[in-house]
């Protein structure tokens, strides 16, 4: 087998065209930026016949240029993705093969966007997202990785080789290297080359998305549960409770994150069981949250309340016990048949929640301080509603806008934190395919072989960027209300 080139026969036409268009785009953007400082604000000139004409000048020309060259670049990028789908294996090069591997993701993305755009007026805030370009780009990037993780984890698609298999002779080989005959794998090439243990980088990167997509949102949800459950009473009641909780939150925030990770995520600390106790403490907050949420709503109808609370708390309690109960740690009392799963990276999960919760607490507290003086709170108090009903059913829904935006940003931040942990090799096994660990593996030989570290770096960057753009789009759209 021959090694794959980057773009194969497809590149002979598309590559020069892309280069020219990119150069033009760069020129147009620079021209627009420079002209933007000097050009006067657009002047409108009214003609005698009642029409109005805008003078555009060189700035207008540059803007049109940016627009059309950008569409040109976009068209070529789409061609890079679409055309290889009908070409035989190998003729479209590495880029073509990668876009073929992602075919299920492309289909899902197109379907999702088509459905969402058609029904966007009926979909509330989510639908409004499709009015903003930035929000759509961000959502597209995020969903790309969500779908990738889904197809890799559930159907075992996309990845071409096993992410742990070592193939001799492919150590640190560059992108598109052919694998020896008889190696297990869907295609006879390593699309993005081999890492320093001769494993397929492409498969490791797509496999790594499963870790991030599963852990980051979950950890953020837990941090929000803790932050909301403590932040609402702190802001609502104020006084000593607020002083104490704020002090503790500031205490955690004053800790340099990396120092905290180094202190918490070591085998010695795991041995003492501190992470298990922290998990037992932090993960009880969802139970409290849902218990209080439902109780405050239905306590006037005891029969209905019991009918709802018992199953909800039962299931949550079982999940809670399964999560904190770990083989071979201090908390290990459940019989094996009751223990649903063992999370091997509980300590990573706990420390990420622990670091994020104080910030959420501060945000929720600030919002509550602002919202508790509103008329609807006073109305609820006059009706004789309980304090927790007011906090959870009056204040919290009205604070949802900033909280949703912060949720998106915080998932991105959690992704960065997970990457940091992987980068320092804390709490994750060295074989773990997550992006931080892969970057850490790749950086050791970075000056000699640059290719192993770049794909996970690009993947992490695109996911976090997508989340930030999504948050920006959501903020913009929610402000329009």
């Amino acid at each position, binding site marked *: 087998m021959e090694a794959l080139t980057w773009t194969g026969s497809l590149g002979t036409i598309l590559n020069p065209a892309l280069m020219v268009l990119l150069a033009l785009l760069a020129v147009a953007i620079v021209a627009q930026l420079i002209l933007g*400082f000097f050009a006067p604000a657009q002047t409108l000139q009214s003609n005698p016949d009642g029409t109005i004409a805008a003078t555009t000048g060189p700035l207008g020309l540059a803007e049109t240029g940016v627009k059309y060259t950008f569409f040109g670049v976009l068209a070529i990028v789409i061609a890079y993705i679409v055309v290889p789908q009908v070409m035989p294996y190998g003729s479209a090069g590495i880029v073509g093969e990668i876009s073929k591997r992602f075919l299920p993701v492309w289909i899902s993305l197109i379907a999702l966007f088509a459905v969402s755009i058609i029904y966007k007026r009926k979909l509330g805030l989510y639908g409004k997202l499709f009015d903003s370009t930035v929000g759509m780009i961000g959502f597209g990037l995020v969903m790309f990785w969500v779908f990738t993780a889904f197809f890799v984890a559930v159907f075992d698609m996309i990845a071409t080789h096993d992410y742990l298999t070592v193939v001799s002779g492919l150590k640190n080989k560059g992108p598109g290297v052919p694998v020896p005959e008889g190696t297990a794998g869907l295609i006879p090439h390593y699309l993005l080359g081999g890492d320093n243990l001769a494993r397929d980088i492409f498969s490791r990167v797509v496999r790594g998305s499963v870790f991030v997509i599963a852990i980051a949102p979950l950890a953020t949800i837990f941090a929000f549960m803790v932050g909301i459950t403590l932040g609402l009473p702190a802001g609502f009641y104020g006084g000593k409770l607020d002083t104490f909780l704020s002090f503790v939150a500031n*205490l955690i925030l004053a800790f340099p994150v*990396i120092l905290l990770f*180094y202190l918490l995520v070591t085998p010695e600390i795991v*041995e003492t069981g501190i992470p298990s106790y922290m998990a037992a403490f932090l993960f009880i907050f969802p139970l409290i949250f849902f218990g209080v949420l439902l109780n405050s709503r239905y306590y006037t109808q005891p029969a209905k309340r019991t009918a709802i609370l018992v199953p909800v708390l039962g299931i949550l309690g079982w999940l809670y016990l399964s999560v904190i109960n770990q083989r071979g740690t201090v908390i290990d009392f459940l019989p094996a048949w009751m223990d649903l799963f063992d999370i091997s990276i509980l300590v990573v999960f706990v420390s990420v929640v622990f670091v994020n919760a104080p910030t959420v607490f501060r945000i929720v507290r600030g919002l509550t301080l602002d919202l508790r003086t509103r008329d609807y709170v006073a109305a609820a108090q006059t009706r004789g509603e309980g304090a927790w009903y007011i906090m959870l059913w009056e204040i919290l829904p009205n604070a949802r806008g900033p909280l949703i935006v912060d949720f998106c940003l915080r998932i991105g931040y959690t992704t960065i934190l997970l990457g940091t942990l992987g*980068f320092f090799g804390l709490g994750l096994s060295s074989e773990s395919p997550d992006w931080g660990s892969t*970057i850490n593996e790749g950086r050791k030989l970075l000056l000699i072989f640059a290719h192993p570290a770049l794909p996970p770096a690009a993947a992490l960057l695109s996911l976090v960027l997508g989340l930030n753009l999504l948050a920006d789009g959501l903020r913009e759209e929610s402000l329009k209300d």
Partner: protein
Amino acid sequence: MGLFILRRLGVMLLTALCLTFIVFWLTNLAPNLEKLAKTQGNARMSDEAVVSWLGNRGYSQALPIKYGQWLGVLPGYVIEGTDGEVRARCAEPGQPIEEASSFCGILQGDWGYSTVFKDEVGSIIATRLGLTGKLMFWVMMVMVPGALIIGVLAGMREGSRTDRSLSTVSIVSTATPEYVSGVVFISVFATATFGMQWFKGTATGAMDDATFENFFLPVITIALYGMGYIARMTRASMTEVMTAQYIRTARLKGVSFPKIVMKHALRNALIAPFTVIMLQFPWLLNGVVIVETLFNYKGFGWVLVQAAGNNDIELLLGVSIVSVFVVLVTQLISDIGYVFLNPRIRIS
């Protein structure tokens, strides 16, 4: 104002005490001490030997007492060990026990001894902080003006094309953690992969002799991540100021746009970024640790990694004190500075 500063100082002191106690507790947990005994004494020690080794060196005392001794408010231990030798916390090597001072802790300026570097913790931290200070100085020189310029340019005409492109730039930079941008910069500008081998991929040489070639990449890597955030805050505060009544008055008087921005808007728009810049220090510390590891620049962050990775308890405690101190002092400066800069806030 004086009372406000005093109260803030009190809270800061309390926070520092709590944080150092937590670090002290975590580093003095039984498994950590056992590891220490085995690395310092003999790797194949029996459990009894570990216990007596720790007992002889004062590690088996109650935690608050150990913390008090380390802090320097309780007299250091003098223990006659099971092996008959008398050891005192404050005795220098070779110094007779009777001549040793009774108090030796952080307050007396005795930071302890590093087991990894075989040197006094105080002197290690001083030299490494100097190196990191050099890095931080240049980071600040790049980051602060860059962020303020981007933020002011973006915020002066809200919704314009300049605003949108610069805002996108700042979003991209906040979405790029140091370990991503550092790796990308090294592979693009320090290897032959893309044919742009303009800079050095390590900053080890910059410790003695910093040049543009070996120092630019680490500085820009840290600066980029913080820059986007500060720029966004500056933009937000600038847009807010630009919609204020007095700016409209100035426009209606016929003051030119550049003059409005420079003379009227800028001063008020820079209050909020000041606090943000100060509060960025804890995050910069993160960046410093990552970048110093990545570029092999042996400064404060690198020492933190070495101390934590090798269970060097006293060095780790020293490092924690310094970083907690930096964080708290910048918070204090940010609070006080905000009050000073903003005449509308009067805290009695």
